[in-house]
C-alpha cells in the first residue's frame, strides 16, 4: 500500500513491520517522531512490544543489549549527540555479537549547535563493529530496516546495524512510500531465534573476561563476520527484490558509471540529488556517473577497485571531516585502490556540514572541477565547498 510519509515514519514502520520486541529510546531532535510513532503503535496494540522510556541514549543501547542477550529483537533510534553518547555501548553490542538494529538520523555535532544534516556522528562510529547503511530515500529507509534485521541475524553475521537517514532532508520530508504487507514481511523475516542466548536456569556468563592469549581470536571472528556480511547484504537484497520488487544497488550503487570518465561518490540524500545532476550533464554529453556509497561498513573494497579500473577521476563528497586528514570516505577509498594497476585521479570535496544545502549547482561544479583535476592535478586534493571567505565561488 502506497502512503505518503516522512523518513522518520518510514523508520518506525520498518521497525514495526520487523516486529521489534523491545524498544528502548530517548528523545533527540530530529529523531523524536520515530519513537513517538513507535510508542503510539505499542500503545494501540498494533505492535506487540515493550517500550522502555530510558533516561539516556547510553541506557537505550544498554537496555537493548541486555534484551538482545536473552533473545529479544530490539530497536532504538537516535541522532548526533545521542549516537556519540552511545559510543561505548555500540562497541559492547558488536563485541557481544548482538544483531540490534537502530536508526541514526544523521546530524551535526556541537558546537556550534546544529540540528541539521551532517554525517560526522555516523562516521565517528565507523570503528564500532556496526554495519552502516546510508539511505537516500524514505522507501530505502523502510526497506533497509527490514533487510538489516535479516542480514544481521544471519548465523554467520550476528553483528548490529545502523540505518542512517539525513536529518530533516529525509527525516522530516514526506515522500510516497510503499508499505509492505505484514504477512509478506513475516515470511521474509522469520522471528529472531539466536543460537546463542542466555536462558533462565542455565548458568552461563555472557561476554566474560579473557586473557591476552585468547582475546584476538574473538576479534578475528567478528572480523570474519563483518566480511561475511558483504555477501549476506547482496543475497538478502536479491531476496528482497524477489518478494517486494525493489533493490538498491548493493554496497555501492553505480549509477550511469559504465562508460563514465569521472564519477562522484556520495552518500545519503545528496546522492539522490546527484542522480538528477548526472542525468542533466549526460544530456549535455558529459561522461559522468554517480557511485552511491550505500554501505560504509563493511566497506565495499571490491566495488571501488572495479570502479577505479574504469574511470579517470573520482570526486569524493564527504559530509563530515576527519580533522587533520580529510573526509573519511576519501581516505578509505584511496586506501582501498592503492594497489590497483590503474589508479584514477581523486579529489575530496567537504560539503554540506551542519545542514548547508548541497545544491544541484554545487554538484555540477564538482563534476566540472573533477574533470579539470583529471587533466591538471592541483596541489590540494581536499577542498572545502561553499565556505565564505574562500576564493572559489560555488553558486
Amino acid at each position, binding site marked *: 500500500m502506497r502512503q505518503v510519509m516522512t523518513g522518520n515514519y518510514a523508520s518506525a514502520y520498518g521497525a514495526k513491520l520487523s516486529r521489534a*520486541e*523491545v524498544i528502548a529510546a530517548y528523545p533527540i531532535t530530529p529523531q523524536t517522531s520515530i519513537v513517538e510513532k513507535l510508542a503510539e503503535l505499542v500503545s494501540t496494540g498494533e505492535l506487540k512490544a515493550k517500550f522502555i522510556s530510558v533516561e539516556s541514549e*547510553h541506557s537505550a543501547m*544498554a537496555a537493548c543489549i541486555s534484551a538482545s542477550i536473552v*533473545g*529479544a529483537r530490539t530497536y532504538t533510534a537516535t541522532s548526533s549527540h545521542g549516537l556519540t553518547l552511545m559510543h*561505548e555501548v555500540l562497541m559492547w553490542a558488536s563485541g557481544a555479537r548482538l544483531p540490534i538494529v537502530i536508526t541514526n538520523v544523521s546530524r551535526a555535532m556541537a558546537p556550534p549547535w546544529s540540528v541539521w544534516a551532517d554525517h560526522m556522528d555516523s562516521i565517528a562510529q565507523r570503528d564500532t563493529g556496526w554495519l552502516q547503511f546510508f539511505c537516500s530515500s524514505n522507501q530505502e529507509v523502510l526497506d533497509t530496516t527490514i533487510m538489516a534485521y535479516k542480514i544481521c541475524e544471519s548465523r554467520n553475521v550476528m553483528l548490529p546495524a545502523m540505518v542512517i537517514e539525513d536529518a530533516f532532508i529525509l527525516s522530516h520530508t514526506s515522500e510516497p512510500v510503499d508499505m509492505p504487507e505484514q504477512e509478506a514481511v513475516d515470511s521474509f523475516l522469520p522471528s529472531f531465534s539466536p543460537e546463542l542466548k542466555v536462558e533462565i536456569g542455565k*548458568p552461563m556468563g555472557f561476554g566474560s573476561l579473557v586473557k591476552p592469549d585468547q582475546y584476538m581470536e574473538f576479534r578475528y571472528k567478528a572480523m570474519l563476520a563483518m566480511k561475511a556480511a558483504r555477501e549476506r547484504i547482496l543475497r538478502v537484497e536479491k531476496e528482497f527484490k524477489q518478494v517486494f520488487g525493489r533493490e538498491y544497488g548493493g554496497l555501492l550503487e553505480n549509477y550511469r558509471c559504465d562508460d563514465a570518465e569521472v564519477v562522484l561518490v556520495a552518500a545519503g540524500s545528496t546522492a539522490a540529488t546527484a542522480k538528477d545532476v548526472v542525468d542533466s550533464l549526460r544530456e549535455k554529453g558529459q561522461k559522468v556517473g554517480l557511485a552511491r556509497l550505500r554501505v560504509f561498513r563493511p566497506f565495499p573494497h571490491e566495488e571501488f577497485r572495479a570502479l577505479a579500473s574504469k574511470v579517470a577521476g573520482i570526486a569524493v563528497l564527504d559530509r563530515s571531516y576527519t580533522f587533520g586528514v580529510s573526509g573519511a570516505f576519501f581516505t578509505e577509498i584511496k586506501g582501498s585502490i592503492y594497489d590497483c594497476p590503474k589508479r584514477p585521479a581523486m579529489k575530496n570535496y567537504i560539503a554540506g556540514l551542519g545542514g548547508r544545502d548541497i545544491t544541484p549547482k554545487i554538484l555540477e561544479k564538482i563534476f566540472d572541477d573533477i574533470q579539470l583535476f583529471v587533466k591538471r592535478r592541483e596541489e590540494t586534493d581536499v577542498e572545502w565547498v561553499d565556505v565564505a571567505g574562500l576564493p572559489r565561488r560555488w553558486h
Partner: protein
Amino acid sequence: MPKMTIPEEEHTYPGSTGCPGCGANLVMRYLLKGLGERTIISIPACCWAVMPGYWPSNCLKVPLVYSAFEATGASISGLRAALDMKGVEDVTVVGFAGDGGTVDIGLQSLSGAAERQTDAIYVMYDNEAYMNTGIQRSGSTPWGAWTTTTPVGKNHDFKQEQKKDIMAIMQAHRVPYTATVSVAHPEDFIKKVAKAKAIKGMKFIHALSPCPPGWKANPMYTIEIARLAVDTHVFPLYEIENGKVHVTRKGKGLPVSDYLKLQGRFAHLTPAEVSSIQSAVEANWAILLEKDDSGT
C-alpha cells in the same frame, strides 16, 4: 541437635577469584541463597566482573550478563522487558554493582530504573571505594578514610567529604522496598532478600562489603568488622517498606573506635577526628530511631 541457620544449598562454586576474606563473595553467596536459581544477574564493571574467573570459568550457578559500568539500571530494565515479552515468568532480575558503579557513574541509570519501577532487585555491595581499580575514593567512601586518591600524607588529606546516603536517594524514588544488609548477619540478609523477591517493582539492597586489601584489614576479621559496623551504628541494619522504617537490629552501641581500629584506612585519624565520627554516627542513629516504625 545442631541446626543450620541459613539455607544449605549453594548457588556459587568455590574457585572465585575474589581476594581472601572478600566480603563481596559473601554478599553474592547469601544473595543467591535468598533468591534461588530462577534468577538472572547483570553485573557492570566492578570486582565481581572479574571474580567469576577468566573465561570459561564461572562461579555462579545462575545466568550472568555483563553490562557497561554505568548501565546496570538500564540493563535490568532491558532484561525484564525482554523476559516479559518472551513470557518467561517467575524470574528474579538482579542488578549487582559496586558502590562506584551505583552511587557515582551508575546513578543516572539506577535512577531511571527506579523511576520506571523496573521489577528487579538492585544490590549494591559497598566496599566503600573503587576496589577493582586499586582503592580510589568513591562517593561512597566514608569521611576520614584513606584511599589511594585521598592519600593522607603530609597534608592529612583523608577523604574530606561525607558518604552519599544512597538509601535516602532510593527512598526519594519511592521504591517499595529498600534494606541494608550485613555479611555478619546472613540470617537477616537472606530474610530481607527473600522479602524483596516477593515484592513487585524496584527493590534496593545496600550490603556493606568489607574489603581486606582496600580497608587495610586482616582478612580474618571481615565478619568481625562487618559485625562491629552494625554494633557501633556506623552501618545500622534496617529496611524501609512502602515508606515505613523498621530497624531490624539495634546493635550494642559500641564506640566507633572499636570498628575503626581494625582498619588501617582509619589509622591516621586523631582522637578528635574519631570523636567527630562518633558524634556524626550518633546523630544519624538518633534520626533513624526516630523514624523507626517497628514499635520496639
